[in-house]
């Protein structure tokens, strides 16, 4: 396989991988998040959050993918970029690394959203009730 063809194939494989990883993380967290979102006081808000959740993982994954640029000081021309297979592999590794990092940041962000939902909604601890029962 020529470097030119490798670049084309690997680029689109990484793009597909970013979407697939975003979807996988969404599927893994979808059910527990729905349970947390249902604790929100408003009726329409949980539904909006549940629809927003897939975008909240797929878009950061795509952002991580596109944030890596093939052009740099030493590789400004297309011919220079495709000249070295090692450089192309390193860029692919950088893309996957960036995808994983952005998904991790998205997970932390959704944790924060869940925290606010639990604070505002009815998802908090049951200790008051247990204290009353003890008394």
């Amino acid at each position: 396989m020529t470097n030119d063809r490798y670049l084309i194939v690997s680029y689109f494989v990484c793009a597909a991988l970013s979407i697939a990883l975003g979807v996988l993380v969404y599927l893994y967290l979808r059910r527990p998040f729905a349970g947390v979102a249902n604790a929100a006081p408003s009726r329409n808000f949980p539904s909006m959050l549940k629809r927003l959740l897939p975008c909240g993982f797929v878009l950061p994954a795509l952002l991580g993918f596109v944030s890596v640029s093939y052009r740099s000081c030493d590789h400004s021309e297309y011919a220079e970029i495709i000249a070295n297979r090692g450089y192309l592999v390193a860029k692919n590794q950088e893309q996957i690394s960036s995808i994983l990092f952005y998904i991790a940041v998205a997970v932390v962000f959704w944790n924060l959203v869940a925290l606010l939902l639990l604070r505002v909604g009815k998802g908090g601890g049951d200790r008051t009730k247990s204290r009353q029962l003890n008394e």
Partner: protein
Amino acid sequence: MNLDLCAFLILLAISVAIPTILFRLLRPSLNDLLRHTLKLQAGVTFYLRSFLLVLYLAALSAAIGTSFDLKPGSRFMEYVWKDAEGVSSSLEKTLWFVAVYLVLITVLVATLKVKDDE
């Protein structure tokens, strides 16, 4: 097998082992803490799964980002140093995310406790 690939696979294995050990160590106590803090079982599951994901994503993100561009004919220790470099960045990223998660859980426990006390 190509030495570059072999070193990369060792780095990947170490980067999977680190979050696995961390999660196995912290899971029981984190589970208990979340069960005592949250009324919703879904909330407990969500935070546990998120913690697992964050650990693996952070560790693998750093490990995969390490490029093995060593010259052909490099000595054994050069591969070891490259692996050590990868493990270093993997540990660094993982610990940063654990720190952020710890702050998040502290805020969760603190705010829900305040709410209960009210």
